[in-house]
Structure formats: structure tokens, C-alpha cells
């Protein structure tokens, strides 16, 4: 079709302005799709924080709060679960395995978590992936600690380095009488485990032997050797992860824990709680989409402005087309065709930019943020975005096209200049 060829030729003849406009739209499309990729990647990563755990149990609060402190190590538990309740739940026939979590202390800016060695087998992320050791191994001594990849990287720790746990979360009082030894460093997971110092449940008890009610008992300093002789069974834990024997029993167990008569407890399904939490985080997601959508709109407006500013110089061109028999509507169509061609090229270029960017940045993003960005084909949603941009370009170009329509009606085939 000669008109298509003419539109292309006309674009090529104005390649500098057209090229810049296309590049602007392409960048905006790449940004929009990039945000989309990061968003879905983040959502997937987020949902992958914990898997294969059927229930999380803690003191009764909100399900999001329980998830935040037990899995994300954000915020604090309002209350603990007594060891008796923990034992009761562990003894229930539905329970396949149970792993306790004890929180409340910190090391530098990282949380310290007391648990059992079973944690390293039971905690799964990213659809059933298990924790792996980059160096060393799980704790076997009372004063052994396993640290996450970020802890090791941030503090420069290696296996066998000493480590002193601080009491509380933002405290200058240290448990310096009971120093730990780094027994193992976990491989990077992209989950909060990376930022956690993991010790045994007994170790948490051990470092609190000389403490009462949140303060050190004056003058009392039990030596590590004495501590080793003591009964270090905890009186309470912060939360527990549970796996059931049959998935059919999850709700039954959840109900009975929630109705546990001895103390107010809460059991949540991690997946459900994660979704609930994402619903809150999702506002930022909407904001991101809105901002990148506006960037696309701005680029399209820039294109409309470029077509507008070119109209005056192109009045003669339009007069020629009118003279050879083009209807004013044909001129509208020609201008819209130009816009659609530009948008099409821009979208293709934007997609190319996106994949180049993904390919180049993926290792860095995975390492720095634990965000795994899959390089796969465009989702149907992203395809719709691409088509939407082209349609939006056609609609935006209506403004200059209508102006051209008016000009060509008043100019006819004679341009006075």
C-alpha cells in the first residue's frame, strides 16, 4: 500500500525528531513493563518466603502481625506461647512436625532466633527449596550460631568467628558472658532468613540465665560451664511452625488451636496470611503502576506535541494530498497511521530494552535484593499493555489529526505562505 510507504518515508525524512520521540515512548514502555516484571517478581518472591509449612502458631494477635514477626522478623510478639501449650500442640495426632521459634534478642542490626536443628530441614522457600549451607554446618554446641548470608556479608563473619548477642532489639546491654561461635553460614535465599542469626532454643535460655524481668541480676555471673549443666528447657517460645500429616487436617488443627482453652493462641495458614499482607503492601504496587503509567502517558503526549508542531510545516504536504484527491479524513488517517507506526516501533524497541535490561541486571538484582526476575515471554497482561500503548497513541494522535483536518479543510489545495 502506497500510503503506508508514504507514512514510513515521511517518518524517515524526519528521523531525528521522530527517533527521539520513539525513543522516549520506548523508554516509557520499557519502564512500565519493567515495573510490571519487578512487581510480579516481587509478588512471587514474597509469596515464596515460606512454603511447605501448614500452620504458624503464636499468641493471639492478628494473622498479619503473627506472620510479620515469625517469618519476616518485623515487629514483636505481644505475648509468648507457654512451653506447656507448645508441648500440648506438638503431642496432637495431626502434627507431623513442629519447629519452635524464639525471638527477642539481636546481634547488631540483625534478629536472633532460637529454634531447633529441625528448622534447617523444615523451613522451605520458593516452592519447597530447602536452606543450604554456604559454609560450615548446623549448630551442635550450645553456643553455636548459624548466620544468614546477609549477616555474614554485612558483618564480614566467617565460620568460627565469635559473636555476642545483645539483649532486646535496640539495646546496649550485651550477653557478653556467653559469646557464640559462628558454626555455619547459610546460602543466600532472598528471604528474611538471610538477615537472621539462628541459635538453638536452649542457647536463648542460656544467655538469659543471669537475667530476670529484662534486666541483669546484679553480681550474678554464671559461667558457661555451669550453664551447660543446667536444665535449659524454655518456659515459653514466641511461635511455632507446624506441618500436618494430612493436608485435610489443617483446618481441624487450626480450629482446635484457635479454641485452645489454656491460653489464647492463633494459628494461621502462611499462604492466606501472606496474601493478606500483600494486600496491604499492594498499595505501593498500585502507586508504582500509576507512576509508570503516567510516564507512558507523558511520552505519548510528547509524541502528540511533536506531531502538532510538525503540522504547520506540513500544510503544503497536506495540500498536495488534497489536490490529488485525498479526503480530509484520509489525512487524519495518515497522521494516525504515523502515530501508530511510531508507537509500534517504540513498543518493540521498549520490549527489546526491557529484555536487555533484565538480562543485564538480573544477577545484580538477585544478589542485592534477593529478587528473582524470571526472563520469560511477555505475559498476556504485558501484551495487553503493549497493545494498549499503541491504541493510546492512536487516540492521542486524534488531537493533532483533528487540527490537520481543520487545516486541510480551510487550506484546501492552496497554502498561502
Amino acid at each position, binding site marked *: 500500500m*502506497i500510503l503506508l510507504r508514504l507514512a514510513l518515508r515521511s517518518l524517515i525524512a524526519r528521523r531525528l525528531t521522530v527517533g527521539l520521540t520513539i525513543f522516549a515512548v520506548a523508554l516509557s514502555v520499557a519502564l512500565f513493563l519493567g515495573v510490571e516484571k519487578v512487581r510480579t517478581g516481587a509478588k512471587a518472591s514474597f509469596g515464596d518466603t515460606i512454603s511447605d509449612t501448614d500452620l504458624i502458631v503464636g499468641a493471639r494477635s492478628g494473622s498479619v502481625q503473627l506472620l510479620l514477626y515469625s517469618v519476616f522478623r518485623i515487629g514483636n510478639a505481644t505475648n509468648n506461647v507457654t512451653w506447656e501449650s507448645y508441648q500440648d500442640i506438638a503431642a496432637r495426632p495431626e502434627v507431623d512436625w513442629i519447629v519452635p521459634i524464639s525471638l527477642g534478642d539481636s546481634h547488631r542490626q540483625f534478629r536472633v532466633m532460637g529454634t531447633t536443628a529441625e528448622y534447617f530441614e523444615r523451613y522451605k522457600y520458593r516452592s519447597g527449596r530447602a536452606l543450604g549451607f554456604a559454609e560450615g554446618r548446623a549448630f551442635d554446641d550450645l553456643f553455636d550460631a548459624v548466620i544468614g548470608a546477609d549477616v555474614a556479608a554485612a558483618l564480614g563473619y566467617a565460620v568460627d568467628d565469635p559473636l555476642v548477642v545483645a539483649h532486646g532489639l535496640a539495646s546496649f546491654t550485651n550477653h557478653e558472658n556467653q559469646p557464640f561461635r559462628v558454626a555455619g553460614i547459610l546460602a543466600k535465599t532472598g528471604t528474611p532468613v538471610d538477615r537472621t542469626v539462628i541459635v538453638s532454643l536452649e542457647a536463648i535460655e542460656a544467655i538469659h540465665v543471669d537475667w530476670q524481668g529484662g534486666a541483669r541480676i546484679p553480681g550474678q555471673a554464671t559461667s558457661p560451664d555451669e550453664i551447660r549443666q543446667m536444665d535449659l528447657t524454655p518456659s515459653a517460645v514466641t511461635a511455632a511452625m507446624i506441618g500436618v500429616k494430612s493436608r485435610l487436617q489443617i483446618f481441624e488443627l487450626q480450629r482446635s488451636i484457635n479454641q485452645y482453652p489454656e491460653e489464647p493462641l492463633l494459628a494461621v495458614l502462611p499462604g492466606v496470611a501472606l496474601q493478606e499482607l500483600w494486600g496491604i503492601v499492594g498499595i505501593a504496587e498500585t502507586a508504582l503502576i500509576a507512576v509508570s503509567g503516567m510516564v507512558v502517558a507523558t511520552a505519548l503526549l510528547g509524541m502528540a506535541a511533536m506531531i502538532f508542531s510538525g503540522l504547520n510545516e506540513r500544510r503544503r504536504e497536506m495540500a498536495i494530498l488534497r489536490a490529488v484527491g485525498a*479526503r480530509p479524513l484520509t489525512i487524519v488517517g495518515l497522521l494516525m497511521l504515523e502515530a501508530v507506526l511510531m508507537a509500534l516501533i517504540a513498543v518493540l524497541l521498549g520490549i527489546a530494552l526491557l529484555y536487555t535490561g533484565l538480562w543485564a541486571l538480573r544477577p545484580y538484582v538477585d544478589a542485592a535484593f534477593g529478587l528473582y526476575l524470571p526472563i520469560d515471554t511477555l505475559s498476556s497482561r504485558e501484551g495487553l499493555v503493549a497493545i494498549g500503548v499503541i491504541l493510546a497513541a492512536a487516540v492521542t494522535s486524534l488531537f493533532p489529526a483533528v487540527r490537520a483536518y481543520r487545516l486541510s479543510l480551510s487550506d484546501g489545495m492552496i497554502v498561502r505562505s
Partner: protein
Amino acid sequence: MIDTDTPFALALDQVEFHWAGRDAFGLRVSGFRIGRGERVLLLGESGSGKSTLLSLICGINAPARGSIRVDGTEMVSMPAAARDRFRAEKIGIVFQQFNLLPYASPVDNILLPLCFAPDRRARAGDGRTAALALTDALGLARHTMASPTADRLSVGQQQRVAVARALIGAPSLIIADEPTSALDAGSQANFLDLLFAQCSAAGSTLLMVSHDERLAPRFDRSVRMEDIATLTREAAA
């Protein structure tokens, strides 16, 4: 060749036109006819209403009343889109200058009217061949025609490409609006020779507008703008 029922290539009767929004300024043509195959020179100074008259004949604008027939077909009653199509089919136009889309190739420029005129396209046969036959006859070298864009051609070459565009598919009426004013005297004569020859070959009628009376002897007939048209400048009511 000449259809006896409609002996006129162009016939205007009692045409009255007012510029939109400017009722005070108008143009009246009581009668103007051009026979088929005639070569007519329309003489007029700038401001004499030539441009307005041409846009009426070409169907870009429609008069308030009166009749304009091209090749025997009444244009005034046609809707605007039909007039555009009719213009594409029946009329070839050559302007003073800037006739061509600068970014398109010379051949694409020549083929342009055929996009809007299916009958003319059918008459032209293979468009590219027809275009090159015309430009050969107009003395344009093939390597000139191979230029990727028309803006690389000289003004004289561009004018000849414009003539080829007007003539392709042999429309019944060729309108040339001061086509020689951008050319030097030697080129003018040469250009007119070619224009006449090709109009005859295509069997097209020629209406050429100019302010240059010296061209008159070369035409079958010359008409002064003031003899056929009156400008109306009534005081605004």
C-alpha cells in the same frame, strides 16, 4: 473522442461563492466553458480570485449556488467526499511549485493520485511503467527518476514530475496554476511544449492560469479573469 452530448470539459453557470465566515467577500461567475481538448489560458493578477475559482473547479470548495460541470458531471450537488474522489478521477493539477511530497520518490509522487482514483488506476495499467513512459516523454532521465526522494530534483525536474503526476491515467482536465513562473524563460518554452504534447497525447483538456500575457499566443484561447468573474465586496451588514 468527443462525446457530443457533453461537449464541454468544463462548464460553470451562475456560480456564486462566499468565503465561510466572510460573507462580504465572494466570487461570481456567470458563465465559463472550455471545450474538450481545448487549451485555455486564464489570465489574472493575484487577488483576482483565481485561486478561489480553481478550488471551486476542483471541488475543494462548493459554491452557494450555480452549476459546475466537469466532463459533463455536475459537481455542486455531490457530497464533499464524492467531490474528492471525482477530483482524483477527472482532474490533474500542477502548481506553481512545491508540487511533490519531498520525502517520497518521484515515481511514488506520480502514482499518488491513483491511490484515490480506481478508474484512473485501471486506465493507467501498470502504474510504474506508465509513470516512466510519461517521464521519458517529458525528458526526465531514468537516473533522475531513480532518486530516492523527490527533493533531490531541480525545480525544473520537479515541475515535469508534477506534470507526469497530473497526466497519469489520462484525466479529462489538467489544471496548471502558474506552472512556469518558477522556471527561467528558456525552460518555460520547453516546459510548455512538453505540457502541450502530453495533454494532446492523453486527450486531456488544459486550463492554465497565469499572469503572463506573453504566453497567450501559444494557447487556443485566452480568457481574462475579470471577463468571466466578478469579485463581490459588499459592505458587511
